[in-house]
């Protein structure tokens, strides 16, 4: 048993434990915390695989930025998770979620199975190239091979951000006016009357 195996075992167990606990919590903050635990453990796994850049970015982007925003929203709304969760979900959605979860487990099982016993499945897991996930390789993929798709994706994100800002700005105008009307045209006239 070498050091790699021990580290892998610990972080794998922690990652799965965090993911399971995240779903099982009623308190939204606890959920977010378990998700961070799971993400950090996953980052350790990435780094063990030699994908140093992916591991670091997983923490910087997901654990460091997105999860903080989640917590920020939870804090602003001051959710404490003590409220009654209300009636259970309708039967249709119960069936759907079990079917989807089952399919996902099957798929995962197939991938793992074909990885462990390569000849039984048609396509086994192919181990990544040695440098996969390092800064240089990722940079070459993003900025040379897939430059245009990458830039298009960032423009899409930019459009989404601008849209969000426009919608939030409209809500702010409604609040300062003190009128409950949702029609922006009427709001403008109200604004003009008030000077």
């Amino acid at each position: 048993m070498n050091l790699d195996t021990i580290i892998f075992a610990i972080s794998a167990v922690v990652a799965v434990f965090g993911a399971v606990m995240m779903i099982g919590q009623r308190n939204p903050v606890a959920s977010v915390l378990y998700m961070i635990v799971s993400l950090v453990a996953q980052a350790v796994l990435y780094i063990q695989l030699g994908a140093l850049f992916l591991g670091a970015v997983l923490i910087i982007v997901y654990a460091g930025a997105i999860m903080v925003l989640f917590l920020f929203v939870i804090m602003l709304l001051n959710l404490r998770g003590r409220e009654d969760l209300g009636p259970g979900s309708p039967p249709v959605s119960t069936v759907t979620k079990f079917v989807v979860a089952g399919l996902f487990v099957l798929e995962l099982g197939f991938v793992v199975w074909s990885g462990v016993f390569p000849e039984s499945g048609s396509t086994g897991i192919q181990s990544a190239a040695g440098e996969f996930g390092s800064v240089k390789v990722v940079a070459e993929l993003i900025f040379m091979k897939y430059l245009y798709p990458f830039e298009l994706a960032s423009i899409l994100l930019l459009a989404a951000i601008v849209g969000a800002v426009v919608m939030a700005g409209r809500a702010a105008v409604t609040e300062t006016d003190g009128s409950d009307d949702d029609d922006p045209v009427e709001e403008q006239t109200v604004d003009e009357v008030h000077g």
Partner: protein
Amino acid sequence: MWEIVLISSLKVVVIMAVVLTGCAYATYMERKVVARLQHRVGPTYAGPYGLLQPIADAVKLIFKEDIVPNRVERITWGLAPLVSFVPALLTFIVVPFGADIELCGRQIKMVGSDLNIGILFILAVTSLGVYGIVLAGWSSGSKYSLMGGIRSTAQMISYEVGYGLSIIGVILVANTLSLRELVEQQASVGDWFIWRQPLGFILYLTCAIAETNRLPFDMPEAESELVGGYHTEYSSMRFAMFFMGEYANMLAVSAVGATLFFGGWQGPYLPPVVWFILKVFLFMFFYIWLRATFPRFRYDQLMAFGWKVLFPLALLNTMVTAALVML
């Protein structure tokens, strides 16, 4: 295998001991320097020149009553001080503090771990530091804590962007992410990256102050508005943990700044470790000097400054540097 574990553990223990002592004496330095800047003498009673003051403080804090308010979320509340303290310590793992040495016939690197993504590791760890404050603010069940927590989250996320971008200039010039190689490239004073990245350095300094919540950016704990901010409900050692976390953070950004812009441990005559500590405490002195000089920003000024001044400047710096490197 056990040899690696042993050497790594030893390094970690030494680094932790040095950083914790550094934190303790940073508080002493802060009190002395601020006192001098305000025509006072500062602590003098405990030991010669008051040198034992940090120990007296620690003893006092340990023996204080640990008050747990009724409305706190126990587990999260107890975890928050640790969460704000540990990431600050983690930064020191990748910061090199001396040249390689020979010991018992084997090469020992004077760095906790020479990751070749050292700078990314620092950014990752820094981005986790905000959780301690967020969790403390949320779990305290008090409006002052909550306000302090929300403020500081917004502030730290905003300034993290500038912090990361200000470092990218150095990375572009040096063409490496390993802190050890960065130091090796700055062998003489003329090679220091501050000369090639003057704007980057100013941006780094500003963002680092905001990241560590120091004056003039100490919104999260603005006493006049928020009592104590996120740590209002903490007492005794839990409070001390936040305090140490803040100082460890200051030391961390100082150490990273010294490594990125001032050649790390490189220097003539004196041993490398001494040079490194000198450079770090030069940064610390600057911090304290600022604290004694400037009043606190207003919150909206702070956010506007972060997004409308620092962020575009950092982008500009990155662009110009990238263009120059390409040429």
